[in-house]
């Protein structure tokens, strides 16, 4: 794809990139802390990943290999659109293979293939403030972070348990970073939370509309909030991926007919392909599970 004329490498001007990198350095120095930054108006709409795009644009170099996923897949329309954007404005190599990428921009998932040292994972973040659902005011939540006043988060989880018998949060499940800041992992399923813990890759988070950056440096402690008698747990499935037979990946449910028929397939399209290339195969058909009574709590 030809590189578009009239724009700087990776769209943003160098001063803006430096401003964002300074913010990122601060974010890395204080893991989980939300750093305000002068977010720019991007040629993609707010909510489409403008924060992640700005972070990617400010750290990407001509030798980087970029992978973009949305819902775990490389071929969803928004992932295609963002990958094309960088191919156009930066002319960088792109890939769908997790292991080949130096820079991975993601919305809503962490790849199943473990990331390695030297890789950077950039998250698109809609609402960076994990306390937002208990306190709508920014002036208040900033104070709560400063004073480590996180009791309300445990109260919220406790209320879930008394009301529903379990913690009723399935995605955007709050985490405690490096024992200090409560942080939103972005709307990834809680299935992915354990992957953040001591991840060898650098994790950067960009929220464009809310104008915040934050980061988790490599090998940092990331703990999901829970209680001793109600430990954190992740989703499990009784079925396996219909295409590759994986029983360890996050599965998307696909409706196959109007009779309630459905099948489960890997949300991570690269992981699924890798397994199929290695000779694994699923049962290939709809799920025969009648009522879905999944996993053990």
């Amino acid at each position, binding site marked *: 794809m030809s590189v578009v004329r009239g*724009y700087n490498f990776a*769209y943003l*001007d160098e001063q803006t990139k430096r401003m964002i990198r300074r913010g990122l350095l601060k974010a890395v120095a204080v893991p989980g802390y939300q750093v*305000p930054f*002068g*977010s*720019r*108006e*991007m*040629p993609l*709409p*707010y*909510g*489409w990943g*403008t924060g992640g795009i700005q972070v990617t644009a400010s750290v990407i170099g001509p030798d980087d290999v970029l992978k973009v996923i*949305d*819902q*775990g*897949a490389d*071929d*969803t*329309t*928004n*992932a*295609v*659109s963002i990958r*094309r954007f960088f191919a156009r404005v930066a002319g960088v190599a792109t890939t769908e293979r997790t292991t080949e990428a130096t820079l991975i921009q993601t*919305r*809503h*998932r962490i790849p199943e293939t473990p990331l390695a040292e030297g890789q950077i994972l950039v998250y698109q973040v*809609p609402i960076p403030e994990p306390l937002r659902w208990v306190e*709508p*005011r*920014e*002036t208040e939540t900033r104070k709560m972070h400063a004073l480590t006043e996180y009791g309300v988060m445990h109260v919220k989880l406790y209320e879930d348990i008394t009301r*529903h*018998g*379990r913690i*009723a949060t*399935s*995605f955007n499940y709050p985490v405690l970073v490096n024992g200090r800041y409560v942080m939103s992992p972005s*709307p*990834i*399923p*809680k*299935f992915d939370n354990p992957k953040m813990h001591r991840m060898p890759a650098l994790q950067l988070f960009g929220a464009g*509309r809310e*104008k915040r950056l934050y980061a988790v440096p490599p090998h940092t402690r990331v703990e999901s909030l829970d209680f001793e008698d109600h430990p954190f747990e992740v*989703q499990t499935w009784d079925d396996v991926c*219909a295409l590759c037979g994986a029983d360890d990946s996050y599965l*998307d*449910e696909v409706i*196959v007919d109007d009779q309630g028929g459905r*099948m489960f*397939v890997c*949300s991570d399209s690269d992981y699924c392909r890798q397994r199929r290339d290695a000779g694994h195969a699923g049962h*290939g058909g709809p799920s025969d599970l009648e009522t*879905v*009574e*999944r996993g053990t709590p």
Partner: protein
Amino acid sequence: MYVAVKGGEKAIDNAHRLLAEDRRGDPAVPELSLRQISEQLSLAVDRVMTEGSIYDRDLAALAIKQARGDLVEAIFLLRAYRTTLPRLAVSRPVDTTAMHVHRRISATFKDLPGGQVLGPTFDYTHRLLDFDLAEPSAEVPEAPAGSPRGDPVPRVTEVLNREGLIAREVADDPNAPVGDLTREPLAFPADRATRLQNLARGDEGFLLALGYSTQRGFGSTHPFIGEIRMGEVAVEIEPEDLGFAVEIGDILLTECETVNQFKGSKTEPPQFTRGYGLAFGYAERKAISMALVDRALRGRELGEEVVAPAQDEEFVLYHSDNVESSGFVQHIKLPHYVDFQGELDLVRRLRAERDAEAAQ
């Protein structure tokens, strides 16, 4: 066999082609020129310039054409372009007292120096569809050539100021640089200059509704229109190496100053207070709404009880920008399969547990 949702690339290409085709409409109908848009849809151009934060009629007309007349989309296009432009200079404050006035009215004084100048207003038209406009008309009768008023048009608030009846407004430090929302994120409490900047870029409909809410009792500010003026003002910059100001052009502005009742507080005597609105082009609804909301947001500094949405600066300033709100509201149409799968799983589990309990 399940066919994965492949082909995103091709789908996007085709969608763009369809969009281009729909934008053009019937090829038998002559294509709109930017000049037509800028001349005949001039108020749309004004709104797009104001909320898009660039004074450029041609670019705004292009954005409107490209956006198929969707003004919020046009504002977004203009903003995304603006953000790539270099900053050459910061202008000096424009002097609206020296405005070359096309319209100037006051609702507080029957007559006043500079006079009441009605100008090209919809205000006293009867809103009857003019079917003569349905066909290209031969000629528009020429409007009587009013002599532009050469005499100075003093501000209504200055008249009140002389008597000390209205709160004076002096910048804390007139030489301090003005904040720039497009470079620095909002922080609270926001100073008035930052608030006004936010409101100037804010969605007209949002400000209209908020301004209206103050009139209906949600944070009443008892406003009078001290003055609305619309006309050209000169823009000056002072290049660093030159040492004096040079004029770089004229822009059309609409300015509104409200005079609001204020019964006084522990520290302030009873006096009138002000609200301020300013917009590019001829944008009276926007300027008035902005002035109402500006005044409402001053509740904290005036010691008023802050209870209504329009008085709440986090509520107003965080939600006024239509590029932000339009994007975030519409992003929920992007795929959320993964999160939804999590919710499906959760609801099924909760239901299964309830059923199991009921069976016992």
